[in-house]
């Protein structure tokens, strides 16, 4: 189900992006990152991995990492919102912009909300009987996988902001949210390792500990990529600001100590 959703999304994105290339242009890197993100998501749901994940916590953890952390990063770096606004006609684009401006969207896409919804749900899943319940209820299992993908994408988007966003928090707030997300994720992995969660399942302690280590180190890799994407955005924005101020004959803002970090990334 989710794999079909991802395939449809990737196809639609590709069609819109290729059309945009013929008009105002659209970068290959964005296309590649979207296809890679969708591809990673589909791999996470492919039969061999899905079958492993059903009975083995390590398999489930690999699924969580791919679907909830790596795939979202690729999808978000594709700047889907920008492509959508460019593809829609003027009237529809205005309506979408109006929705984006609303306070509700501002609250939902705030990094604090995103961290809570994404990492908070992992605490709920692994430190309560919820995980044990997944084995008997298939609909719940599918819902959890969909939540990984959507909440992970929300978090990556809330931090990276690749699209025009009226409620864009400062760079410091987004960096702080990233630190909190990494801290919460790696602490959860150690809590699971130390106290043997999730309990009430058939998983042995060795299996839980191996899964917790996959979660810790795999999460590190994904978060390192997220941090690189965040600071690369800052670096590019500084370069643009410097070129603008040179073109305008103004002294570079970066010459003033303390001011540089305020540049919007």
């Amino acid at each position, binding site marked *: 189900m989710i794999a079909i959703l991802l395939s449809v999304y990737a196809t639609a994105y590709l069609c819109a992006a290729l059309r945009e290339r013929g008009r105002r242009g659209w970068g290959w890197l964005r296309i590649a990152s979207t296809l890679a993100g969708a591809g990673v998501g589909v791999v996470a749901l492919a039969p061999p991995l899905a079958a492993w994940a059903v009975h083995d916590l390590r398999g489930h953890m690999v699924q969580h990492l791919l679907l909830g952390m790596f795939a979202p990063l690729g999808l978000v770096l594709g700047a889907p919102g920008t492509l959508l606004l460019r593809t829609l006609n003027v009237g529809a684009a205005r309506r979408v912009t109006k929705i984006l401006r609303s306070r509700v969207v501002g609250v939902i896409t705030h990094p604090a909300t995103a961290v809570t919804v994404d990492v908070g749900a992992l605490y709920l899943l692994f430190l309560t009987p919820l995980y044990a319940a997944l084995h008997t209820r298939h609909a719940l299992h599918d819902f959890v996988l969909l939540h990984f993908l959507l909440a992970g994408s929300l978090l990556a988007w809330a931090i990276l902001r690749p699209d025009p966003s009226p409620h864009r928090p400062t760079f410091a707030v987004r960096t702080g949210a990233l630190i909190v997300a990494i801290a919460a994720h790696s602490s959860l992995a150690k809590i699971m390792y130390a106290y043997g969660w999730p309990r009430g399942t058939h998983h042995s302690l060795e299996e839980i500990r191996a899964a917790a280590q996959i979660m810790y180190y795999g999460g590190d890799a994904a978060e390192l990529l997220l941090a690189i994407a965040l*600071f690369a955005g800052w670096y590019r924005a500084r370069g643009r600001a410097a070129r603008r101020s040179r073109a305008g004959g103004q002294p570079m803002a970066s010459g003033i100590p303390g001011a540089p970090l305020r540049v919007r990334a």
Partner: protein
Amino acid sequence: MAGPEGSLDPSRSFWSAFMIGVGIMAGVDTIIFHQLLGWHHFYDRATPAMGLASDGILHAVELVVIVAGFFLLADVRRRNAFTPTRAWAGFFLGAGGFQLFDGLVNHKVLRLHQIRYGVDLLPYDVAWNVSALMLLGVGAVLLKRARGRERSRASTT
């Protein structure tokens, strides 16, 4: 040395390299002592719950700090505002500062983990913290030299 953008930025050169120093020392700690030697453990039974949470925060800061350091340094270089001696001073002070912090706060105060298990810890602790002081010493000497150079440059211009 000063490029078309004009002024050097010793402070940003220092702090960007300081962040890289902290991040690299943390990385060396993870790779050598945890993975290669297997002296440290992923989790130490004696670690209190509070220790786990603070360990998580520290880990997150380390990860972000090394990435931030590299991009800040790249930015100072792009502006032609980079001062190498200041940067090396920052690197050694960052690396030594992290090592000392790890040796005193993480190992002794928070008791997150020890350097090695099943051995007399004292020589290990001494070696660990003395190496930290040596790194800090190198950093301090470089910082003094960098400051001297900046003063003489300021007085000649």
